[in-house]
């Protein structure tokens, strides 16, 4: 069952002498939908994901915070104090850190999650092989995790989360080490979770989020600059040129606008072009 995420005027400071990492951030992600958090490094994207999964509440005792976070039926004021796995799964920005380091094969690493959750008895092999195949890493099942390439490691880290079938899946810049073909595959995987799992994905680029997300949220210096549909984002693209790499996109949008019937029509065309597999 997918859970709704509701963040209400949530603020966070890592310490009393440090600037606000998040300031009055509000967010509503309907169950089973996909929300993309965009923004430059330091905008607060990772901090927000860490708040949702419980890392912040658990590992930053000296921090200052206010507001509230709801995940499904549970309300945390202001934030979860324990790791919410397996209800909430997070794939870290640096996937190397995520792997256990104590398992010798890719298969065993995924099995490790199931063992920890006590679900390994339920036809583990079939489920793991199916998942590895969906992620395109079944041929690596018997490889040592430390010998994988960057993009392969990313997908293994994702597999260790997906096998737990979380209600909420948080992905921190999942595309940064992936080639275009694998990004396409990841898009299919996230699409296939639609309705079952609520997904929040961060990115510093817009191509992947625009092709995938139901909702775009732009963060800058801990504040929400924009929240709306991908189409509305495209229509206001100039507003974000200082915080996102948009130069080429604007050129394309202007090109489309000239060859069609103005900006709104161009935004539709661009959305359609991006949605192609």
């Amino acid at each position, binding site marked *: 069952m997918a859970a709704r995420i509701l963040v209400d005027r949530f603020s966070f400071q890592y310490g009393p002498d440090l600037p606000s990492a998040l300031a009055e951030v509000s967010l509503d992600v309907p169950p089973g939908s996909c929300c993309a958090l965009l*923004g*430059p*490094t*330091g*905008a607060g994207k990772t901090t927000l994901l860490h708040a949702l999964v419980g890392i912040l509440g658990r590992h930053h005792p000296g921090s200052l915070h206010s507001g509230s976070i709801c995940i499904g039926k549970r309300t945390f004021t202001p934030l979860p104090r324990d790791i919410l796995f397996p209800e909430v799964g997070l794939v870290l*920005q*640096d996937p*190397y850190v995520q792997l256990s380091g104590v398992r010798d094969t890719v298969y065993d690493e995924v099995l490790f999650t199931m063992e920890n959750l006590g679900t390994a008895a339920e036809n583990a092999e079939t489920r793991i092989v199916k998942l590895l195949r969906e992620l395109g890493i079944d041929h690596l099942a018997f490889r040592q995790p430390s*010998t*994988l*390439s*960057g*993009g*392969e490691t990313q997908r293994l880290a994702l597999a260790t989360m997906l096998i737990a079938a979380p209600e909420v899946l948080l992905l921190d*810049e999942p595309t*940064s*080490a*992936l*080639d*275009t*073909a*694998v990004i396409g595959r990841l898009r299919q995987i996230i699409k296939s979770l639609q309705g079952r799992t609520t997904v929040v994905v961060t990115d*510093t680029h817009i*191509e992947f989020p625009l*092709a995938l997300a139901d909702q775009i949220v732009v963060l800058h210096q801990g504040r929400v600059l924009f929240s709306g549909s991908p189409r509305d984002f495209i229509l206001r693209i100039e507003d974000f040129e*200082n*915080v*996102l*790499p948009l130069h*080429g*996109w604007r*050129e*394309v949008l202007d*090109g*489309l606008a000239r*060859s069609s019937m103005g900006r709104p029509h161009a935004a539709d065309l*661009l959305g359609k*072009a*991006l949605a192609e597999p």
Partner: protein
Amino acid sequence: MRIEFQNVHFAYKPRVPVLSDISFDLETGDLLLILGQNGAGKSTLLKLLNGILKPTGGSILVAGCDTATHSTAALARHVCVTFQNPADQLFASMVRREIEFAPRNLKRRDAGKLAEEALSLCELDPVALRHPYDLPPAQRKVLTVASAIASGSSFLAFDEPSAGLSQLERRILDKVIGSLRANERGLLVVSHDLELFLPYASKVLLLHQGTLVFLGEPQELLRREEILEAAGLKLPALMRLKKDLGIALL
């Protein structure tokens, strides 16, 4: 000065080839963009440059030194390789020290100046006294690039230097690559980021399952998109849209 790969083969395990029969050469002043799917052998190729890995067949000459018979320390004078994951590489307790390490270690006469220039080119002066691990991941990545530049080596190899960078650091990296090209350094860049690196590339090398399937100019690759597709890659959506609209890509 040049780098020459002659019929290079490499396998981590016998009978499981990772790279097969790779030949190319590169002069200082060139930028070779290395493309390929995840697991195609790109990072392995970079590790062969400075002798971390030795070829299991063929030969690699770096500024005339055969990597099979020269130590990594000796090869480092000519080529500096950065890793995909900054954590594999950073070890000093201060950004400035991290950048000074390579030129001092290589006993470059102008070590201080090299470090200072790299620091300012990569716009890291404001964080020069910070601990590398206190920097956000993207800035840490820029730091690995700065450390390589400071080495003073004629050839620099970067593994996915723009991965995880936001607009701010991309702008810096863009400027840095431009400046390195103008200064006649030889660059090898492994990246999926065609938008950033293709305009700077003098040559593109495309790997597919460990074999070289294309070696040529960027314009030729753009004309023959089917080559990319055969290697399991495609142009990023933005470049495809530009192409459709007749906007210049390079």
